[in-house]
């Protein structure tokens, strides 16, 4: 009996907290809408996706591969990113460009974003600054798992 009472008290407390937030926000929001400047903004939500928050410069978003001036990837297929990746989601296959002196380039470069944990280790490991996570793309959902596998072409874009 006493236990059940405690239960109801907690529910009422919850309702009080939620309604307090609601009414305080409501109040300041109305003041803001009416053009009265207050320190507090009122409503904290934004109208995503029409409205977007600015992404911090250090934020780690979808990877991209950097290109050289001639459009070829800057990556030299050293496989350090694939070595360091804790999710084992990078796969690199190297090839040799017969024309340029000793150029090793990735003939395949695949990141399985579905497995990636966005730790950013790959970016730190890269000796060529060839991979970055600064595209600002954060909506990475796909209709199938294969949609989440990014290959060289997709990553270079």
């Amino acid at each position: 009996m006493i236990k059940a009472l405690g239960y109801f008290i907690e529910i009422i407390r919850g309702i009080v907290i939620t309604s307090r937030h609601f009414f305080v926000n409501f109040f300041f929001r109305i003041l803001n809408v009416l053009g009265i400047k207050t320190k507090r903004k009122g409503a904290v939500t934004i109208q995503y996706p029409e409205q977007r928050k600015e992404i911090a410069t250090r934020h780690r978003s979808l990877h991209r591969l950097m290109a050289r001036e001639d459009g070829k990837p800057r990556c030299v297929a050293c496989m350090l990113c694939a070595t360091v990746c804790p999710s084992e989601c990078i796969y690199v296959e190297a090839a040799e460009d017969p024309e340029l002196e000793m150029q090793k380039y990735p003939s395949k470069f695949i990141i399985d974003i579905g497995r990636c944990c966005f730790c950013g280790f790959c970016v730190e490991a890269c000796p060529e600054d060839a991979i970055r996570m600064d595209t600002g793309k954060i909506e990475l959902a796909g209709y199938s798992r294969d949609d989440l596998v990014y290959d060289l072409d997709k990553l270079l874009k």
Partner: protein
Amino acid sequence: MVKIFIDEKSFEVEDGITVFKAAKEAGIAIPHLCYHDAFPPEGSCRMCLVEIEGLPKLELACSTQVRDGMKVFTKSERVVEARKGVLEFLLAEHPLDCPICDKAGDCKLQDYYETYGLFESQFREVKEKREKKAKIGKNLIHDEERCIICKRCVRFLKEVTHTQELGIFERGIHTSVNIYELLPVDNNYSGNLAQICPVGAITDTDFRFKTRSWLLKKGKSICPLCSRGCNISIEYHPGFPHFQVPKKVFRIYSLENPDVNGFWICDLGRYGYSYIDENRLDRIMIKKEEQKIEPTWEQSLQFIAEKIKGLNFLKKTSQIALVLNTWLSNEELFLIHKIFKSDLNVESIFFADRPQSEGDDILLTPERSPNRRGAQEMGLSIQPVKLETLATKTRLLLVFGSSIQDQFSSSDIKKVLDKIETKILFASHSNDLISFFDIVLPTALIAEKGGSLTNVEGRIQKFSPVFEPSGDSLPEWMMLADLGREFGINPSFYEQLKTPEAISIETEKEIPFFREKK
């Protein structure tokens, strides 16, 4: 014996050896680049400097002999400082392109820089551009920028192969290693150069850019491509299951064994590894007419055992014929000997091996299989297959390996096989023969099973599996032990043969050669 002190600990060492060797025996590693156990000291890299009490300058550990009462310091401040200095000069013209260097991960220069270097270079001059992709041999590429002129390669070609294709040209900062006028390094041991080059100056086209050395797993094994039995390390990548990339062998390195191959292996063994991954037979295959049995190990082996049992019951074991090969291990040959010769008195035992080819006077032998000597010592006479003999009276034919197709045309083989009631093939690779047999059982390779081999000199060498057998394949010894148990002349004997070691113990008991060589 003399008494010396290394880093203030005393050691008893043999007189006349070098400080480097004494330290190595004492378990103290001294950094070195040009020194290699296979050659006399060269003293060109200066990496092995140590301090010796009473001597004003630092000395080269690789070429200084020990003296009684000598006090050597390998870690003193002066030594560490000197190593730094040596490294700084070695790296003055070094391109430091480790990210694309195939040696990275195995590179001594890289390792020593990690341990003793880690300095900012004081050289402000731009590094000189040199040839980075000189083709110096059929599968060797030389990068002059990375070369530290340790002369290991030159000495190898002078002292091991006696072919002397490489030489040192020019002097001072322009010194370089190169071939003489259009005569490339083209001998059967050239691959060793890529392995002994302490840096990434010589790389081979076979491994070049394919993967990184630290991603590879390594396993000790024995090269099965000739009867020398060189000790090798099979380096493979276990595969990326998430990307459907299977296991793959990337290179073979030689392992040191002074009694067998010294430090080297030939190019045939080094580069002939593609058979491990390519074209493998992964499943049991059963011909349509035999569809009553399912392609499982139990059913297929039982089927064979029943056939043997039947013929044995009718006292017609002379109608069984075997075609063996000398890729089978001692243990497998012993089981075959035991089952078919001792238990069943089968007379038609033939051998079909890869055709012999040229050997050389370094390591390569003419035989292209690893265990011919083992088969001989087992008491199996190595008679070549005669198709006519097979055709006349055989009702059950067991063929191990696919080398009969090296000796006869497919149509001839088919003609003979069509006359035989039941024929079974034990094969590791898929090929034309498969369709002629009633049951084809996939077998494991030397790299995938355990056992021992007897090399050309009669040395018995054990090997263990480096990786799992491909697909459903199993080692032949396992199937043979199963067969022995199934057809049941002496099931309890075969019952206990659960490992190659157990079989090897029985071999030693029964065959004097293996007992004595143990």
